[in-house]
């Protein structure tokens, strides 16, 4: 090749590079790619950094499971602040202030406070609520079904949280299934399935997140297997809580694939 052709060749190459910049790959486009690679669990857990998980005994058991895992992995869902009481209800989630003192109230520094009061104090970036186990959906009252009453409480709770922590992402988690032992006694699984279905609709209507953990816990009969429950009734054991954790990780992955969350953005926001 003659030496005089080299500059022209380089000029053509330069023009090609400037004309087709997308071939090298752009970070923002790949975030919305549904076939994006699965992020490592340690990265997915950061989706829950600066978040509050509030609820009843199911959240208490999940908290204890996370604490047990943190013995060997201190970063295991390390960014979650847990607030729970065994008998916490959706009705209590809708309280603006503590209506009556009881062990069922959530605590902040050993003081009884409502969900919205604690949220206002902590100002978490995300709030996840799991309650309803202690709300009697089978009971009709004042012309309102149990499910209608529960969803009314959800809507009130969301309204209070939007007032006290307007910037926080809000999420409700489905009820977990019951075991055969409880279903044979109370025949409530169908009712809880309907509540979960309507809860998801309500969350969509309110523009908040909904996380379904029920489906992943059900056996072929649509119930909670005894092998996943430590009391063989409602409450998850370590194996059940491992599934709960996996659902949370899958949810975070889904947010990433949908372009609604990027770990790098969370990191820079924290800085």
């Amino acid at each position: 090749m003659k030496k005089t052709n080299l500059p022209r060749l380089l000029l053509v190459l330069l023009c090609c590079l400037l004309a087709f910049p997308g071939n090298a790959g752009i970070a923002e486009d790949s975030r919305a790619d549904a076939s994006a690679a699965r992020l490592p669990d340690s990265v997915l857990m950061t989706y829950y950094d600066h978040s509050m998980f509030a609820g009843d005994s199911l959240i208490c058991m999940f908290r204890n499971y996370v604490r047990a895992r943190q013995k060997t992995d201190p970063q295991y869902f390390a960014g979650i602040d847990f607030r729970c009481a065994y008998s916490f209800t959706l009705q209590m989630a809708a309280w603006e202030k503590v209506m009556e003192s009881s062990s069922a109230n959530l605590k902040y520094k050993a003081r009884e406070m409502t969900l919205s009061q604690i949220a206002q104090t902590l100002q978490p970036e995300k709030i996840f609520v799991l309650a309803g186990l202690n709300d009697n959906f089978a009971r009709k009252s004042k012309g309102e079904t149990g499910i209608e009453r529960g969803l009314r409480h959800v809507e009130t709770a969301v309204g209070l949280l939007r007032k006290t922590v307007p910037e926080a992402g809000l999420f409700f988690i489905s009820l977990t299934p019951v075991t055969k032992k409880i279903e044979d006694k109370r025949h409530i699984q169908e009712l809880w399935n309907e509540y979960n279905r309507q809860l998801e609709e309500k969350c969509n209507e309110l523009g908040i997140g909904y996380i379904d953990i029920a489906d992943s816990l059900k056996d072929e009969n649509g119930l909670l297997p005894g092998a996943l429950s430590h009391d063989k009734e409602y409450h998850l054991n370590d194996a059940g809580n491992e599934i709960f954790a996996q659902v949370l990780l899958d949810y975070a992955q889904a947010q990433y694939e949908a372009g609604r969350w990027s770990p790098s953005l969370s990191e820079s926001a924290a800085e």
Partner: protein
Amino acid sequence: MKKMLSVILVCFSVLLLTACGSRTAAVTPAETASAAVPAETAVPAGTEAPAENADTPQTLLSRVETAASDAKDLAYFTGDDLLDLLGIEPGEYTDLAFMQDTGMSGREIIALYAADEESAGHISQALNDYLERRRDETRNYAPEAYQVLSKAHVERKNLLFVLISGPDAEAETAALLAGE
């Protein structure tokens, strides 16, 4: 002149290729600040790092792990949990071991050294209030746990406070207090 132009064009092309190539991935684990803490530097929540010197007094955690055979199966709670659940501030104690089971058996261990007599007064009240709340919480909800917690009580020797619930609570408490 032409040689210089060629060199400039080559350099610019190389720079352009390098800039595009560095943005091929949205995230890599190494880019995040949330990478797991390396095992050799990780310290379990609610504990102090194990003593390396034989003359260094044992931590409360290691003493509890010796006294209670199932301690390592329990969930270890942190000082933050102690503050939220009992209202005991970090400055009020010098050492802590706080554990619960991952089920609802009522099995629980709290051991802490009060920083001084003034803190000891508050710690005593806080532990007793907490025990009462746990009993109230489990009375109708988890009767088995309630039975276990009903038999528990707060013990003190010098500045050491111990609250243990479980089948071997008495022996475990005695073992911890014996070291004082």
